[in-house]
């Protein structure tokens, strides 16, 4: 995760107002349309505080009252992932998108790779389904007290920590040229396979995870565009995960049958 801070912004003359264009849709069956809004500029605004402002009094730039645009937000600290939308053409979290760093007019659109529910809200449940498919968990013997887990090297922990920060926001899938209509398991789930396959206890169910990312819509769909790693707001080494798991699946494909 890197901070997208424009160090020269202090020298800029602050604008008088913020102009925001929102791509809207009343429900999944109706066509999209654009509406424009304008609000007075204040320092330190982010997209969410602008949307909150519009919500209080939803009137377009042309002075026409309208329905309040619908959006999702929760933690507002870029750690829950829910407020992801496409801002000026790039998928990112709207809580950490500061107005001072954005080109105006600001264009807000829902993510395109997921079903659009209404306005800026999409349904990302397919990402959680991917986690089921790849068994993204440790198979515990039970939750009763069995003492501490295996000892681990801090370096391995730090690599796992990087994968473990995935907040299932979908930026990687939105940016991936291969991913469309849920045709590919995608970098998000592959990185979780890496996370659990690296763990000493997780290793024992490694093969089930590998089988979850093999097949027609599996890991081989990756076209190596490397957009995912650019798009990830948490700086997760997604391409490394894809490389490592690709290697693991090849070995598993070649020699896996010997175990059966």
């Amino acid at each position: 995760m890197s901070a997208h801070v424009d160090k020269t912004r202090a020298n800029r003359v602050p604008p008088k107002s913020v102009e925001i264009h929102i791509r809207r849709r009343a429900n999944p069956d109706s066509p999209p349309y654009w509406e424009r809004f304008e609000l007075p500029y204040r320092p330190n605004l982010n997209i969410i505080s602008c949307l909150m402002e519009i919500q209080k009094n939803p009137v377009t730039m042309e002075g026409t009252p309208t329905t309040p645009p619908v959006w999702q937000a929760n933690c507002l600290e870029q750690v829950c992932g829910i407020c992801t939308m496409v801002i000026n053409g790039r998928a990112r979290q709207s809580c950490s998108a500061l107005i001072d760093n954005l080109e105006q007019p600001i264009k807000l659109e829902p993510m395109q790779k997921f079903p659009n529910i209404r306005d800026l809200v999409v349904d990302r449940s397919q990402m959680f389904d991917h986690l089921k498919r790849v068994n993204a968990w440790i198979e515990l013997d039970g939750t009763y007290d069995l003492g501490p887990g295996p000892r681990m090297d801090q370096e391995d922990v730090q690599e796992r920590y990087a994968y473990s920060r995935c907040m299932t926001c979908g930026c990687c899938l939105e940016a991936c040229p291969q991913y469309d209509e849920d045709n590919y398991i995608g970098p998000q789930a592959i990185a979780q396979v890496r996370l659990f396959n690296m763990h000493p206890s997780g290793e024992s169910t490694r093969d089930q995870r590998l089988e979850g990312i093999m097949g027609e819509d599996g890991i081989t769909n990756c076209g190596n565009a490397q957009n995912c790693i650019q798009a990830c707001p948490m700086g997760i080494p997604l391409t490394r995960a894809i490389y490592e798991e690709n290697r693991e699946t090849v070995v598993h494909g070649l020699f896996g049958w010997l175990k059966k």
Partner: protein
Amino acid sequence: MASNGIKIAIVGGGLAGLAAAMRIAEAGHAVDLFSVVPVKRSHSVCAQGGINGAVNTKGEGDSTWEHFDDTVYGGDFLANQPPAKAMCEMAPSIIFLFDRMGVPFSRTKEGLLDFRRFGGTKHHRTAFAGASTGQQLLYALDEQVRRYEVAGKVRKFEHWEMMSLVLDDAQVCRGLVAMNLQTLELKAFPADAVIMATGGPGLIYGKSTNSMVCTGSAVSACYQQGAKYANGEFIQVHPTSIPGEDKLRLMSESARGEGGRVWVPRKPGDKRAPSSIPESERWYFLEEKFPAYGNLVPRDIATREIFQVCIEGKGVGGENQVYLDLTHIPAETLDRKLGAILEIYEMFVGDDPRHVPMRIFPGVHYSMGGLWVDFDQRTNIPGLLAAGECDYSIHGANRLGANSLVSCVYGGFVAAPAAITYAKNIERNGADGSRIYDQELRKQQEINDALVKQSGNENQYLLHQEMGKWMTDNVTVVRYNDKLKATDNKLLELMDRYKRISINDSNLWATMALPHARHLDNMLELARVITLGALNRNESRGAHYKPEFPERDDEHFLKTTIAEYSGEGPVISYEPVDSSLIPPRKRDYSKPKQEPKHDPAAARPVANV
């Protein structure tokens, strides 16, 4: 694992709700799990610093008894002691369980769990995964619950919001009514028991460190249906947050745990850059006033000190801000131990805290109060339990840092078997069963229909803003009785104006307007509980501070506040606190804490617990 068809409904998919769900599913019973957001996006992700447990790997002679004593002392003796003790005893095994689930806890050179220091203790007792421990713990439980979802034991109802409980004629909880947040469809869900795990009510204050879902709405609905609400007036204001337009972002206590120092220039209004102010001209006021604990005094104390410094015009640049300085610590150490929170600061403020001291100010953070529960997490309504921040147990008048994550999991782990035991012994409703569900469903539908139909000149978002401002100004760090009375009058006025709001969205599909209106109604009710609890408590204890009554008054107020709903507002009563294990003593963090009496039972090695 035999099942006799028990079904438990859990409301809330944060740490407490998922902990309970995992345990119930593991025992072979069915869970319906309700959450307004996908559970992986719950507010628990915001917890940063770590989770407490006296594992004593640092050779400091730490023990679960010492943790218990710190918790009770830090909470100014308002907590019932038996559950606080039980939590501290369970804490090491909770940390070990998360370790086994694969949480990437930071390690020592030997590959053991590393621990850091937090406020209100002298021991390294806080296990941590970078500075995003809550996120990591929540994900671990999310993963385990997903396992049970695949196995068919857990049904998730995400984007469904609980509207009310279904109570039978004997006031026994038989399930709940929830609303689908896309279609606005209302549906009744029968359950043998319901566990509330919905977190805190920070949104009552408008802006807080809480997530947008933390309205306290569902808990308020329980209160209005007869659940007792306890110690509502105890609201923790975190000493270090980053003020923002949309929320106050938390700056974790771990920043001070890792050596961060709080200061202001000795000369008020000093315009120099912080780096060019020499040591001798900096006022490290916490270190000066509290030599024993320094920057790691408990949160209520740090908050009051920072607040006072700013009120006296001694804040940085004369404004409401003080420095929280990490610049003396090597950047590599900071990245490893605090990376995630430094990135948050950098992202939202634009300065790099590795090189420039952070500017922070206190912000509403946590509710020690919540639904009244007994030592098995059961509320006064049979069949209704509560766990996590939404219940009042454990923290007393002030919560210690890194005790929230452990209390959430503890609450979930106690509520789960208690709910199962209860469910095994109840008589189910007979043929008459469906009537109570239909009744409650109709009642909720009528409320929604009326809201949609009514048109008035009041704006619900502006009412929320006004409530937040009044509550923040008058019911936080420093409380005066006249202002508390005025706030209650304001709340009554807002409740009256609420009747004239209009839903400003003609498209009800996936609308935010109707759910918000329901939240606002419930928040106003809970705001009165908080305000009147504060008004009636004429003493100062933990987070509750009245200059007119600056001392703790054990004779009159070593008592739990109980609020019960009535048509005329909250009815306040008191019940005694169970102080059977550690006699109350004066809190004084300028001196080291007296040696606690050692409980021989707690001296066993932790691994055998």
